């Protein structure tokens, strides 16, 4: 049906919204990394909040793909489906 094509979607924890604008958006790509890169191309300031300078997921950041936790933290090469939901949140740590 026109207008309802399934595409992956990325959303972010509200605790990141406090620091940088990161609205939920639809993206393309076949891996988590490709989806993130598409998002960062539109919102370049978000990159350094999620990835470190070596391209790895920050130590205290986790990504859920359709409810399962991303395991390839350095490359984020895990495949995603056409209608995958990616959710970026912080690991819980004290303070």
């Amino acid at each position, binding site marked *: 049906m026109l207008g309802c094509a399934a595409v992956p979607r990325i959303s972010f924890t509200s605790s990141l919204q406090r*620091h940088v604008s990161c609205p939920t958006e639809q993206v393309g790509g076949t891996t988590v990394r490709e989806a993130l890169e598409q998002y960062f191309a539109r919102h370049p300031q978000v990159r350094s*909040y999620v990835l470190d*300078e070596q391209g790895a997921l920050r130590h205290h950041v986790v990504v859920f793909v359709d409810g399962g936790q991303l395991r390839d933290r350095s490359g984020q090469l895990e495949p995603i489906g056409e209608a995958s939901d990616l959710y970026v949140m912080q690991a819980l*740590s004290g303070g």
Partner: protein
Amino acid sequence: MSDRIFVATRKGLFELRRSQGQWRIAQTSFLGDPVSLVARSPADGTLYAALYLGHFGVKLRASSDGGQRWDELTAPAFPKKPEGLEDTLPDGKPWPWRVEQIWALEVVDGTLWCGTVGGGLFRSKDRGQSWELCRGLWEHPLRKQWFGGGTDLPGIHSICPHPKNPNELVVGVSCGGAWLTRDGGEHWEVSHGMHAEYMPPELRENPATQDPHMLARCAAHPDRIWAQHHNGVFRSDDAGSRWVSIPESAPSVFGFAIAAHPSNPDIAWRVPAIKDEQRFPVDGRVVVSRTRDGGKSWEVLREGLPQEHAYDLTLRHALDVDASGERLAFGSSTGSLWVSENGGDSWMQLSAHLPPIYAVRFA
């Protein structure tokens, strides 16, 4: 004399202003977020704040209106680690090429210099829009001997520019010694003369593994630099090439913070503590040590400071002196803040309830 103090804490940045003889908190920024350092450009008054967002990494913000509005700058970051390059710490663990924290921030003749936990020294010539790793220091073979002191990775905590020659800098590394460049960062030499009694005998004088906690340079006599080292106090009389030991300092030689008088090279202040695992004030009494004779003797200043069951520890960036040399301020890791308006002779407590204080800077 300066009427403004910025206090960077674990839960925000506080600005204190003096008005009609009273110091009050006039402005807060980043409440709830850790601010590791604050710096002010002497040329245009721009404020820079270094944040460490536990989950989301190191950030750098700038304000051109005195702290009302902050804009995000690019934070310093390492280049991509080359494929296949093995870079390890002395204990064999991988050296991650990652900025863990901004630990030194100075504006020198329009250039921003930034030292980091992670071991990188960075500079920006476009006011924090982009950064360049100072490869002259990073690629020096002795860098591989550095190790972390209290942190997993070594860190550059002090950047002391020569006031008359912006190409001449001395930086302090924990644990990696003091380093000197005379050509704006192309070439570096490690300075000699520090020693570390706590190391195995054969390593005690290795200049590249010393643990200077903080360096402070006299602005008017830049050959004079003070070092509060893990082992005690050292002094350089030749712009950081060599260090001489100051063997005695009341009431103890240990501490983190040290401040140099801006015009009198023989005056310095420090906030001592018990060495070296306990790290609280001797006998539970908060004091400031002051020398006025180049380190030969030290006065213990205690008027206005708590003298009973006080366990305030002052971290390396949490003591500052203003351009007059008369006003000083220091804060503690338990959230107390004091100011002196007479060179340290007496002190007033401005707060006992701030978050843990990382850095204190007059502006």
